[in-house]
């Protein structure tokens, strides 16, 4: 009996199923991101020798780890397709918007899983105490989504350039600066129990939506 994971009339769902099945079978991105996350948290924990960290430091460390985990794994979404000559095949068979949208969703899910794991590792190795869980969860979700969208757009650009991976991190960092500054501040607030700055939450939502819209619009010409 033939097991078939790929059964849908929606191109986005089909491509998403393809991404998850492929990742499940080779586990490359998951392994790279997971290894980076675990090694970094344990290294920091050992070097700090159980010293107490301030909420600001914990927040910055958390987002640095998520950022570099994203850079380690998410850049591959397009470069692997390009290297394996499957990107052109996809372009023949479906619209670029479906391709980029499925990759955004896949990257978001992947990064969200890594962020959850990193938070658990932080709770285990440090004294991470969240006082405002709603703000903390919303910040992680919006921050990770924004990072996934920007990374996907930049990965699609970098795949067309030489020296792909070095270029990927370099062009991502300035674009993600506003997002990183905002999520770090909001995470600190959630750890300290300070009320959220609504304008900052709106900024995050606006940033995510704007980059997603730009990605969907420009992808036709990439």
């Amino acid at each position, binding site marked *: 009996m*033939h097991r078939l994971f790929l*059964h849908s*009339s929606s191109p986005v769902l*089909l491509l998403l199923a393809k991404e998850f*099945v492929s990742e499940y*079978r080779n586990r490359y991105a998951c392994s790279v991101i997971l290894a980076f996350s675990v090694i970094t948290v344990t290294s920091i924990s050992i070097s700090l020798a159980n010293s107490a960290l301030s909420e600001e430091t914990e927040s910055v460390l958390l987002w640095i780890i998520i950022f570099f985990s994203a850079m380690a794994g998410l850049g591959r979404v397009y470069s692997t397709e390009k290297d*394996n*000559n499957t990107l052109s095949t996809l372009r023949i068979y*479906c619209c670029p918007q479906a391709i980029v949208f499925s990759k955004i969703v896949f990257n978001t899910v992947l990064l969200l899983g890594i962020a959850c794991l990193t938070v658990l590792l932080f709770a285990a190795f440090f004294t991470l105490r969240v006082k405002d869980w709603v703000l903390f969860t919303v910040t992680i979700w919006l921050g990770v989504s924004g990072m996934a969208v920007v990374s996907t757009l930049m990965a699609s650009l970098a795949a067309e350039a030489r020296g792909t991976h070095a270029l990927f991190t370099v062009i991502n960092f300035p674009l993600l600066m506003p997002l990183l500054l905002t999520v770090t501040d909001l995470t600190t607030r959630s750890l300290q129990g300070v009320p959220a700055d609504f304008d900052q939450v709106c900024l995050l939502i606006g940033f995510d939506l704007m980059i997603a819209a730009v990605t969907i619009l420009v992808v036709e010409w990439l």
Partner: protein
Amino acid sequence: MDSITTPIMAQIKFNNICMSFPDKLLFTNVNGSVSSGECLALTGPNGSGKSTMIKILARLLRQSSGEVSITLNAKNASDTAYRSAIGMIAPYLEYYNMLTGLENIALFSQLRGKAYCGRQALNLLDKVDLRSNADRLTQTYSTGMKQRLKWAVLAMADPPIWLLDEPFAYLDDYGRTLVLEMLTDAQNRQRAIVIATNDAKEAKLAQTVLTLVKSGTFIAR
């Protein structure tokens, strides 16, 4: 399959196509057209621009100047319809190594908006002699098997216009015979076919031959 019962009459037309790179003029003013039931061969020496021309027709590359258009049932195709009207086989187009042969067929035929029919997919794999490998990951396939899989995917999607770059590459004698049959069948079913090849025998399959020459011009017969 709808396309068999009510064949779509398609035509791909290219006018004054020029392609140049910063350091090289590849070709200028290439003109031609292929309609349903016809076959056009693009021939020429290595580096003359056959693959580039096929990529331009598939919209994988943008030409420096000139126009490519597709008409479906005498109406100009929109961007979406253009994409849906083309199927392509080329050495630089691969399928997913981490999916099985059957999953690749299912993925690409459904991306084309065709309802997946398992029996039809298995019949096609049978036809290209890959039935026993249907559930194996394509990373375990040989180059020739991958080429046969490309033919099965194209036959399953069955678009009105077939763009074929070196379609007989890596195939053994049985595979070549099989592909010849599939090509003849496709022409009988009113598919428009463009073949880029170096092989004079393969070019004989076509009613029209367009020879690209290295000086950047072309000769049609």
